[in-house]
């Protein structure tokens, strides 16, 4: 690779293409691309799933971009498919999620080859959701998690972080069984209502993704429980923000996808131009709630549509 070359092409492979989080990440990546005068493509599968992501990745490798930014859909399962990119001489930067243990270039583990990981730690995000929830509830009561389906690493991690934080820090909060809604907001709403029918004292729901949260929020509103039940959402697309404004959702844990995309492209560019890069960059979270939702400073953390 001659360092003189400037018009690089980088492909961003999201976990799935139909999610505001990744669409916002792409916005950030495009902003960086514009600043650098390079091209960033966006190619991914329709669901967050390794079987679907692998063929897309294979085809991206065949197309031969200069670097790949990818949100691997599974820490173990995507090691093999990504190894092929590495073997083809394409530098890999993982964004949002990671492979193996997320610690690269230290000579340990099967998935040591990516040059850098730019992640927002989903486990930590889950912990922050738990903290926001506990604070709103006054540290005790019954809550449950509304999740998509088992086996999706990001939402599984949010769930794990949420449960860990609750059991470590808030022993008086009882976390009930998780309810899976298949990304069907309508089912998520009905599930909240069933949980409420069984536990009239339910005090909080953590919606681990967009549809889980708006569904649970709708269930809460339908039961006239908006004042008694705390709804915490993960991710902050405008529909969640609208729900915060209308009081259906109490708070959202916003990741910083645009930042991730921006740093991802910058990191890849640095690698391509022969500069050294840190092997791990963490991006933070912002808690959006009714108090700060209208702040100017917060607006940039709302995902694009």
């Amino acid at each position, binding site marked *: 690779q001659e360092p003189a070359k400037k018009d690089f092409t980088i492909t961003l492979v999201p976990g799935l*293409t*139909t999610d505001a989080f990744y669409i916002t990440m792409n916005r950030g990546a495009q902003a960086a691309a514009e600043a650098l005068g390079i091209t960033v493509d966006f190619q991914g599968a329709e669901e967050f799933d390794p079987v679907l992501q692998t063929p897309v990745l294979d085809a991206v490798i065949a197309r031969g971009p200069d670097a790949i930014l990818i949100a691997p859909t599974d820490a173990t399962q995507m090691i093999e498919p990504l190894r092929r990119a590495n073997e083809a001489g394409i530098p890999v930067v993982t964004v949002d999620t990671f492979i193996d243990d997320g610690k690269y270039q230290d000579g340990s583990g099967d998935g040591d080859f990516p040059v850098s990981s730019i992640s927002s730690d989903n486990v930590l995000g889950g912990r922050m959701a738990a903290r926001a929830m506990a604070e709103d509830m006054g540290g005790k009561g019954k809550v449950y998690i509304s999740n998509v389906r088992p086996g999706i690493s990001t939402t599984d991690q949010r769930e794990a972080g949420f449960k860990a934080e609750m059991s470590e820090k808030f022993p008086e909060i009882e976390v009930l069984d998780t309810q899976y809604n298949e990304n*069907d907001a*309508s089912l998520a709403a009905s599930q909240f209502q069933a949980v409420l029918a069984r536990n009239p004292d339910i005090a909080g729901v953590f919606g681990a993704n967009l549809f889980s949260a708006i569904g649970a929020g709708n269930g809460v509103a339908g039961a006239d429980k908006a004042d008694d039940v705390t709804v915490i959402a993960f991710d902050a697309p405008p529909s969640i923000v609208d729900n915060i404004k209308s009081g259906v959702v109490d708070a959202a844990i916003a990741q910083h996808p645009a930042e991730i995309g921006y740093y991802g492209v910058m990191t890849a560019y640095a690698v391509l131009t022969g500069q050294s890069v840190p092997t791990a960059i963490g991006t933070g979270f912002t808690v959006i709630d009714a108090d700060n939702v209208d702040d100017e400073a917060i607006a940039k953390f709302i995902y694009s549509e």
Partner: protein
Amino acid sequence: MKSLLNAWSWLFLVLILGFFEIYARIETGQTFLFRIYNIQSISVAASQILLLSLGLTLVVVAGHIDLSIAFSTGLAAVVMALVIRIIGPESGWLVVILAMAAGLLSAVLVGLVNGWLVAQLNVPSFIGTLGTFGIARGVALIVAGGATVSIRSEEARSFGNGEILGIPVPVLLALVLAAACHFLLTYTKFGVHTYALGANRASVERAGVDVKKHLVMLFVISAITAGVGGLVYTGRFSAGAANAGEPILLYAVAAVFIGGASLTGGQGTVIGTVIGAFIIAVIQFGLVFSGLPPYWQFVAVGLVIIVAVLVDQSRDKLTGSLS
């Protein structure tokens, strides 16, 4: 015979309701069934399934299938939300009605394409509607820019979440459409021809019915009820999502088959489908209510679906040997 069949589906629904009622009384001391809240929750969930399966019932009776409803729903939801966003919610009911018309129209377009493919080009409906499934999905996502389109319209919200005489609007809509579909299938020429088409295409063709036109109408009806499902979705959640209908597709198809329809056509009733949708909604609600751990819920839903049909089977055996 037809009324008997329905009686047995009813029976099964009553059985699972009774089961949950007894369970609830013993375990929690509460009633399951006799709470308006529970009934409303279950009905709203059932109506969202039902809206996708009503038109589908007619298509299946005619011996076809319509997979595209998964995204006719999504397309209608997205288009409605977009129109409200573009015009602005200030114009009140006018814009909402306009937006709903636009959403419905987009679904009807999908139905017309399905009808054209199946009737005119003789594409098998499974493949043809799988194709429009992809197309409607892509178009909905392109139009929406990939994400959900959130809106702020008090009118739309009240359309999706309001009540009339204590009945939630989505339930009312689903029941009105169910009654219309039932009337169509049972009391009109169109309905008889649909059954005949499912049993033997030659019979209707030689009877001089314009089968092509009939097929197009069936797919349009299917698209309309699915599209209404999308409008309800946008109203309920104040957001139009391209994948609004996709997770419900399998349940919608299941409701039709639990209701007595068959892959080979010529069988099925709207009342059966209504009961099928309620059976699914009651199980989903009841299992959460009863506190069964989540993975066991998958197992239980599977078992209940099978048992629902077994009850139907035993009817045949019983009436066969009794009467």
